[in-house]
C-alpha cells in the first residue's frame, strides 16, 4: 500500500456533508466518503490522502496533536476549543452566529435594555463556556456560567439560567422556545485548520491542498 501522506479530519454531521462537497469541488477523491456512516477512516492511497471522521468538537484536538494534518471545523467549535492550530481559510459554508438570548418575558421586564437585563441576570447556560466567559469579561460583567451539552433553550424555561449563549443559524429554535436574541457575539463559518508542525515540514503538499480548497470555497456562503 502506498504511504499516506496527509490526513484530514472531517466533522460528523451537517458540516461534514458540506465539507465532503467542498472536497469534491476541489477535485479531491470523495468516492464512498460518508460522514454519517460507521466507517471512521477513508483511505485514498493513490492520492496519498486519508480522511478521518470525528465528532466536531474533537477535530481541533486531532489536528493540535498532529494525528491529522488538516481539519475542517466550525469557527464556533474552534474558538471554544482554544486549540493551538493554524487557521488557514474561511471556507464560507456552515454559517451560524453566537448570540446572547433570553426568554421574551424577561426581556420585556428589563424594558428591552441590555444593561438592565444584565444587572438582573446571574446565571448563563451555554455549550460554549469559553466564548461566553470572554464575552462577559469584555463587558466587565460577572456571571456564573453553566456548561450544558445540548438543548440550551431548556435551561431558562426551568429556571436553571437567566440567559443563554448559543449558536443560531436561522433563529427558528429561539422562536419556538419564545427566546429573543438580545446581542450578537460573533459570526462563525467553517474553517480549514492545520497542525503547526505539519504545516511547516510538509509545507509543499499542504500548501497546494490548502490553495485548492481555498479556491473551491470561493463564492460559497
Amino acid at each position, binding site marked *: 500500500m502506498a504511504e499516506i501522506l496527509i490526513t484530514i479530519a472531517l466533522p460528523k454531521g451537517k458540516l461534514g456533508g458540506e465539507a465532503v462537497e467542498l472536497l469534491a469541488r476541489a477535485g479531491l477523491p470523495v468516492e464512498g466518503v460518508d460522514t454519517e456512516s460507521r466507517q471512521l477512516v477513508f483511505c485514498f492511497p493513490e492520492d496519498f490522502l486519508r480522511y478521518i471522521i470525528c465528532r466536531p468538537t474533537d477535530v481541533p*484536538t486531532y489536528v*493540535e*496533536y*498532529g*494525528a491529522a494534518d488538516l481539519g475542517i471545523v466550525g469557527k464556533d467549535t474552534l474558538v471554544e476549543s482554544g*486549540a*493551538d492550530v*493554524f*487557521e*488557514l*481559510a*474561511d471556507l464560507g459554508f456552515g454559517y451560524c452566529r453566537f448570540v446572547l438570548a433570553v426568554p421574551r418575558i424577561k426581556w420585556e421586564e428589563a424594558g428591552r435594555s441590555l444593561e438592565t437585563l444584565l444587572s438582573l441576570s446571574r446565571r448563563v447556560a451555554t455549550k460554549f463556556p469559553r466564548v461566553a466567559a470572554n464575552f462577559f469579561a469584555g463587558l466587565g460583567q460577572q456571571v456564573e456560567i453553566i456548561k450544558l451539552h445540548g438543548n440550551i433553550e431548556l435551561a431558562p424555561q426551568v429556571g436553571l439560567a437567566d440567559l443563554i449563549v448559543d449558536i443560531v443559524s436561522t433563529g427558528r429554535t429561539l422562536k419556538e422556545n419564545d427566546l429573543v436574541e438580545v446581542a450578537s457575539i460573533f459570526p462563525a463559518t467553517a*474553517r480549514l485548520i*492545520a*497542525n*503547526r*508542525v*505539519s*504545516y*511547516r*515540514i*510538509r*509545507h509543499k503538499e499542504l*500548501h497546494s491542498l490548502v490553495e485548492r480548497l481555498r479556491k473551491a470555497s470561493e463564492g460559497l456562503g
Partner: protein
Amino acid sequence: MNNYNRHLQLPEGVDDFLPGPAAAKRSLENKLLGLFRSWGYQEVVTPTFEFTETFQAGQVAAKEELLFRFIDRKGRVLTLRPEMTAPIARLVATRLRKEKLPLRLCYVASVFRYEDPARGRRREFHQAGVELIGGTGVGADVEVVALAVEALLESGLKDFQVGLGQVAITKGVLADLGLEGEALAAVKEALVGKDWVGLNRLCEQYGLRGTARQRLELLFTLHGGRRELKEAIPILGVEAAREPLAHLEEVLAILERYGLGRYLFIDLGILRDFDYYTGLVFEGYVPGLGFPVLGGGRYDGLLAEFGYPCPATGFALGIERVLAARNGEMFIEEESRAYLVAGKDLAAALTKAKELRRSGARVELGCGISSLEEARREAAERGLNLVWVETV
C-alpha cells in the same frame, strides 16, 4: 480523583520514569551535555525555585497563569522555574559579570509550568539547552543553529527539520504599516497565531491594501530556501527589514556550505514568543509529533532587564519530546558483563564484587542466598553470570 488513596496517585501532569525510560533519558542528557561541552559550553546549575521577579523579565512574563508560585515564610513570592534562560541571564548579570564575553553556558534541568495536561503538555518536564551570551552577528547565530541541528542528530532523530525565521523582519514590516495600539496588536496576533482569516479581516478593517497587504501576506506564507527569500526581498525590503533579511540569507548560506542545508528551511511565519525574541528564531520539528522538539533564538533585550545590556542567543530541547519522537526506541548501551556474586562469607563476596567492578563489570550481590544451588537458580533467572565465593 478519589481522595482515599491519594498516597498512591500522582497529580496531573507529572511523571515517573521507570528504569528503561530513565536510562534512555539519562543517556540522552549525557550525550547532549557531552556535545555541548565539546563546543565549549560549560554546564551551570541554578536553583529549582527563585523569586518570581526573575522570571517576570523572561519569556513567560506574559503568561503569568503558567507559573507555579508559592509564598515563603517572609511573605515573598517564589516561583518554580518555568524555563532556564532567565535564571542564566540573572547569573550572568550578577556573578559572572566580570567574565570575558562571549560566555558559553549549558544546562539540563526540569522546568515547571501550569499547563493543561489534557492538551499534550506536562507540568514538569526536562530541557537541555545552551545560551551563548555576548555573541553577536552572523557568527553567533550560525553557531547556535548548527549546534541545534547536531543536538537533534546526536539525539538519534533522523527525519527532523529545523525552520528558521527572523522576527526583526516582521517587526520592521509591522512598524512600517503606520498602525498603532489595538490595531497593531491585532495584526501581530493574527500573524503570530497564523490566523489567515483574521489577518484578511483586519486588512479590510484597517484599509491595508497594495504593497502593505502584500507584505503581510508574504510574512504569512514565505516558506522555502534562499531562492524564495531572495525573491521576497524587493517586496519586503522596507528600511527596517532590509538588514535582518540579508542576515537571514547569510546565515542560511553559511549553514548550507557547512552541509546542513537538507535539515533547514526558512519560514517567516515562525515567530515564537514574538515580543521576547529580537532576531533569528528557529524551531525543530519531527514528522508525526504535533509539537516542536526544540526552539530558540536571539533575545538581545533580556540581559538589560538584569542591568547588564548584552546580546544573547540560545535554544532549549525538550527531553520528553525527543524521547517521544524516538517512539520508545532506546539507545543501545554497550552491555558490560553482568555478574551475581554470592557466598556465605559476605566480606569475601564484597571483596570479589569490588574486583570485578574494577574491570568494568556490573555486579549484583546475592542478598540472603545461602547455598550454591540457590545462587545458581537466582543467577539463571536474572540472566547473570554466577561467581560463588567459597568461605576461606
